[in-house]
């Protein structure tokens, strides 16, 4: 079943066309890797899937992206709701200047969750899913910046998992991390794919090989090849 359908999609920053005539179907409950050399548009493509690109004033697009059969660019779509459904983890860990607990519960607090007592429960569950709970359970009130880089990145994953997204976008989230953190993150993703669709821009081809069922190659913004059952 196709979760995401990208149709004749073009994307521009000003006059610069970053994505060219892109067509792709992404299947539900699988890990799809989008792989390409630097500046090939993989990050931009991920950013388009939750309309994060809208934040750039010069962004323009043509074509369409459908999630569950509905266009994400339709005028009625709530961008904030879309971004909760389609969560994004950035290349560089980005802790907010607050405690670990406040970081993970940030998205929940935006929702005015009335049942405040559920927040600690969801925070714990998210941190467990991101394989970080055991390392931080005794210091949830510590500043998030006191965590190591790998822990920060797992916290960022927990932060988005707290919102229970359908789709998880991971942009080179393991570049610059130690092998143990990388292994933990990859393990979490393998478990999470039962609940959600994961699109990752892996930082090397070995990672794509380890975790994903389907690899899409792109270059200079263009679709090159899609390989299912990928093994090197």
């Amino acid at each position, binding site marked *: 079943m196709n979760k995401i359908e990208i149709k004749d999609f073009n994307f521009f920053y000003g006059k610069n066309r970053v994505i060219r005539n892109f067509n792709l179907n992404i299947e539900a409950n699988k890990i799809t890797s989008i792989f390409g050399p630097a500046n090939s548009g993989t990050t931009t493509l991920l950013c388009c899937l*939750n309309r*994060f690109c809208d*934040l750039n*004033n010069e962004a323009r697009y043509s074509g369409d992206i459908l999630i569950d059969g509905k266009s994400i660019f339709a005028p009625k779509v709530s961008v*904030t*709701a879309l*971004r*909760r459904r389609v*969560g*994004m983890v*950035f290349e*560089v860990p*980005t*802790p*907010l*200047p*607050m*405690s670990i607990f406040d970081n993970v519960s*940030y*998205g929940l*607090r*935006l*929702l005015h969750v009335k049942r405040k007592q559920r927040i600690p429960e969801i925070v714990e569950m998210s941190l467990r899913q991101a394989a970080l709970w055991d390392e931080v359970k005794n210091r949830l*009130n*510590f*500043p*998030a*910046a*006191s965590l190591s880089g790998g822990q920060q990145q797992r916290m*960022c994953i927990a*932060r*988005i998992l707290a*919102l229970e997204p359908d789709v998880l976008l991971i942009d080179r989230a393991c570049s610059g991390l130690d092998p143990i953190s990388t292994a933990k993150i990859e393990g979490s993703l393998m478990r999470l794919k039962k609940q959600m669709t994961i699109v990752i821009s892996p930082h090397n081809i070995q990672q794509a090989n380890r975790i994903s069922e389907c690899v899409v190659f792109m270059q200079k913004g263009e679709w090159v090849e899609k390989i299912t059952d990928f093994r090197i």
Partner: protein
Amino acid sequence: MNLNISEKIAKTVVWIASLGMFGVLTSIVAFILFKGLPAISWSFLTQMPEKMGREGGIASPIAGTFLVTVPAVLIAMPFGIGTAFYLAEYTKGGIITRAVRFSAESLAGIPSIVYGLFGFIFFVVKLNLGWSILSGSLTLAIMILPTIIRTSEVAISSVPKTYKEVSYSLGATKWQTIRLTVIPSAVRGIAIGVILAIGRCVSETAALILTAGSVLGMPDSLLSSGRTMAVHFYLLATEGISPERAFGTAALLIITVFFINVVANTLIERLFKRVGR
């Protein structure tokens, strides 16, 4: 030149510069406190001035300072901080934005006596408020606006872009992002601007002599004339009325500004306990 030697020279130069600055600053404060503290006593703080300030205390200038400064800051803060948020977050940079920013920058450099003249013509005469605490407050509010706008805008725009991006990526609206991420990160910088503005109000003389007058009595409403400590000090010193009481007032001014700084900093520390830096 040997790297070691240039390193030492650089270190010596900055050391001498900071030592010199520290020396000048402390000697000024020490001089005023040395001259002024003996004049300060409980009766000096609580009694009304007598014989044009030659005798008695400075109860009415203390009240005047408070009554002029508080409304001025309360009026200028919402407008100033609001404008700063507009400039830093809401505008994409057009003619209006540049005009607002340019006028704020220009207004910051105008001598206070010009504000005084404007306040005199507009508030005192045109709006018929007379020489009053209210005219003085309104004039000072306009005078401190540029300070608050500039410092707040710098504080707001120095919040890292990634914080905002993360907030948006978690489904926050613009206002939620500002409230939960931008304000807690920028509040210190904004507070520094407000403290500077309070300092300018407390130490202002020229603009106030033209708008609030210099009546020595205790002001009984915002519409009565009155003088602040700074004006009192200016008149005592320039007219040679009482150098001891002038220094007493000056010492109290310094203590007041110091006190405001400490209180404001503790308050911010309490309200926005910040973690993560």
